């Protein structure tokens, strides 16, 4: 029965990626593209880690501290991602009616949802993190055992995150007497916000460059093998692998914890499912009763854009699964800015202005990455979530271009505010003034508008009006292609912008005028970036329009 329940999942994947009777060009292209991205991440990681590694013992410690942070970030994101999709897959999935009407015991339904949620939520994190962790193995010249341990720890961490997220979801959905089950995500998001905050505080990144700690270097080296966060499974994995990388020692206690935890949590979840699922599922159906009423405050006016905006805003605000994630974004902003506040740049061995300007420059990429991720979450599925109602748009006297343009404007405004908040606040915390301030703000704006336009274009090109749930839409081929393309675009802009930014800041800090060649490079890069941004935006936007116009 367990394998029977998983059949639709495997067959859907097979039919989606290897359509019967067709050469899967799209899949091959996406696989090659993904491989190329992984290779780039791997090579870049080797460069960065190798640089640290070549310095001295401090460099090694720093690189391992980053290793730990990467693990904890990965784990936190996995738990959040799993909790968000567990509510959808366990309680709101449309196939629940036929699955639950069948003679399948709750434990087997739990197993099926566990596997599908694990795959939906973990694959992207694993694909992006594996090249980084592999680079550590390469730089530290690890033997075969490291690769085996790496595979086990990555799989176990992902399994722990899924099992924990699902267990918590089953319990919360049963405990909270909420008619609208989706509201539960509000609580989950808040919990996640607190969790990620605590995680980052546990890492104490500011201690890394604290001279007092350097004195105790030997102590520090000896204690690195001890769990940094003894109650956090990701820290077990990070510490276990760090110890192996550093000393080729195996901490069997940590290894046992890593291996046993997924099974323990899984069985706890199964136990909770058997006892609580039916009540939770019943409550989740009650949420469709629609007992809320809304008085309209808007008088009717003949304005397409106003009603388009109003429709978008209302459908967003009235869907608690959507708006409650604003809390998550709030937590993200707080943690993000907190990190800048905690950076002890004044204790750096380099000149403070150089360090802060360098961080501000790198922050453009970080902000861009956040905007891209949020666009993939909110903007990309916004076309597909029109669902069956999209035929109203198709049959209405409004062009698809206008429809998409209104969508773009609707999403561009909040994303611009968020991007500006992130970049200006972090610049303020870093005391950035002069050319780098303008450079970071303008580049961030260009990146934000472009990735939002690209998200809409890709969302239209790959619109799935019948998506089983939002988690499924996020794991679609289109979403993957969007993420890779948007990140490729940002990398190109930032990579090429490094030289003009460096010369601009160097001359400003030294109080020198820019040379003609510097100005030429700056103008050339600006024009090329604007052209590239406009080009990719228009290209994907038009492709999206075309796809929707020909949608049958």
């Amino acid at each position, binding site marked *: 029965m367990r394998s029977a329940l998983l059949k639709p999942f495997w067959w859907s994947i097979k*039919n989606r990626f290897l359509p019967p009777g067709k050469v899967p060009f799209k899949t091959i292209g996406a696989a090659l593209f993904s491989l190329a991205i992984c290779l780039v991440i791997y090579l870049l990681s080797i460069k960065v880690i190798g640089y640290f590694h070549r310095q001295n013992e401090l460099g090694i410690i720093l690189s391992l501290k980053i290793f730990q942070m990467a693990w904890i970030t990965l784990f936190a994101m996995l738990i959040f991602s799993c909790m968000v999709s567990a509510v959808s897959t366990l309680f709101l999935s449309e196939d*629940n009616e*036929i699955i639950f009407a069948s003679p399948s015991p709750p434990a087997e339904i739990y197993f099926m949802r566990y596997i599908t949620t694990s795959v939906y939520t973990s694959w992207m994190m694993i694909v992006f993190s594996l090249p980084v962790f592999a680079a550590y193995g390469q730089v530290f010249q690890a033997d075969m055992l490291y690769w085996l341990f790496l595979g086990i720890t990555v799989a176990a961490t992902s399994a722990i995150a899924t099992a924990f997220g699902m267990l918590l979801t089953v319990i919360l959905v049963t405990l909270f007497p909420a*008619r609208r089950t989706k509201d539960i995500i509000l609580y989950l998001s808040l919990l996640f916000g607190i969790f990620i905050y605590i995680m980052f505080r546990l890492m104490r990144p500011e201690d890394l460059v604290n001279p007092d700690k350097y004195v105790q270097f030997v102590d520090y080296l000896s204690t690195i093998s001890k769990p940094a966060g003894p109650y956090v499974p990701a820290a077990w994995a990070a510490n276990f692998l760090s110890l192996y990388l550093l000393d080729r020692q195996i901490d069997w206690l940590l290894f046992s914890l890593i291996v046993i935890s997924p099974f323990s949590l899984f069985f706890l979840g199964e136990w909770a499912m058997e006892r609580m699922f039916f009540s939770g599922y019943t409550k989740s159906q009650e949420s469709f009763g629609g007992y809320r009423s809304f008085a309209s405050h808007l008088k009717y006016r003949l304005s397409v854009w106003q009603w388009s905006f109003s429709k978008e805003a209302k459908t967003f605000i009235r869907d608690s699964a959507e708006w409650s994630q604003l809390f998550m974004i709030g937590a993200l902003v707080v943690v993000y800015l907190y990190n800048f506040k905690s950076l002890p740049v004044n204790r750096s061995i380099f000149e403070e202005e150089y360090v802060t300007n360098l961080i501000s420059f790198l922050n453009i990429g970080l902000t861009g990455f956040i905007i891209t991720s949020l666009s993939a979450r909110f903007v990309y599925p916004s076309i597909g979530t029109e669902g069956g109602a999209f035929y109203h748009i198709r049959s209405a006297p409004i062009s698809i271009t206008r429809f998409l343009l209104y969508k773009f404007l609707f999403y561009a405004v909040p994303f611009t505010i968020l991007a500006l908040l992130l970049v200006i606040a972090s610049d303020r915390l870093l005391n950035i003034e002069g050319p780098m301030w303008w450079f970071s703000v303008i580049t961030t704006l260009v990146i934000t508008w472009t990735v939002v336009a690209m998200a809409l274009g890709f969302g239209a090109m790959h619109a799935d009006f019948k998506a089983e749930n939002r988690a499924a839409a996020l794991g679609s081929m289109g979403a993957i292609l969007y993420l890779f393309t948007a990140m490729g675009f940002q990398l190109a802009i930032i990579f090429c912008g490094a030289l003009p930014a460096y010369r601009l800041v160097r001359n400003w800090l030294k109080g020198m005028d820019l040379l003609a060649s510097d100005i030429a490079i700056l103008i050339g890069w600006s024009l090329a970036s604007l052209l590239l941004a406009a080009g990719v935006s228009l290209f994907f936007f038009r492709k999206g329009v075309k796809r929707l116009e020909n949608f049958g």
Partner: protein
Amino acid sequence: MQENGNNTDAGPRLAIRNLTKSFGSYKAVNDISLTIQGGEIFGFLGPNGAGKTTTIKMIAGLLKPDTGSIAINGHSLAEKPQHCKKITGYIPDRPYLYEKLTGLEFLQFMASLYQLLPEQYNKHVPHFMNLFDLTDWQNHLIESYSHGMRQKLIITAAFMLEPPLIIVDEPMVGLDPKSAKIVKELFKNHARQGRTIFLSTHSLEIAEELCDQIAIITTGRIITTGNLATLRKEAKLQDSGLEDIFLELTGAYELHEVIAALRNEHSTSQ
């Protein structure tokens, strides 16, 4: 599927006792009781929002009742959910199907969920696919199916199991006349074999044509149960069809005034 309509399970095919379900302060189903025997087609009628789908979902094991009990072939649904579900087929009003599966893959999946024996699968699936003109489409993805084809596929999935009890919510929506006729014959045939159909519908013609027993539910309460003759007597409309009886019993008699008002409005506008 090992069980069939001739199994020796004790008790009526479906026995509902004092079933109640509330959503907040709203009582969707209010203390209803029903007993349905094998070989019956039981019609469950009522206006929109009367509690039909809520009742059906509770019988299918999709909603937990607040109070009351449901027994299928004498087995309590609350105590033996897996056993009861195994002998019950469910055809929902809006059939969810996996878009990225082919029709045949979907049927294989459903058959394996209900542990249908391979010989039964091999016997029934080609028969029903052929009956519903789905054979040419069986290897196409469901996303390319029309609404009617999806409905036929979900009906096939229920009938291939030959369960003693089939619960149907609005069976004819989206079906062409030929398929609708086939479905009606399938229902009759199913009942002739001693099995039971629990049918919820808005179509009074279908209920009149097919059902041996009818229950009318309104505002969560069953107001009457019986065959057409009993209902006529209750409504004091001896020569009327089910439509008039339904309107009389559900309190929609003011409908005549509404129709008259609409006609008046039309004539004055001309």
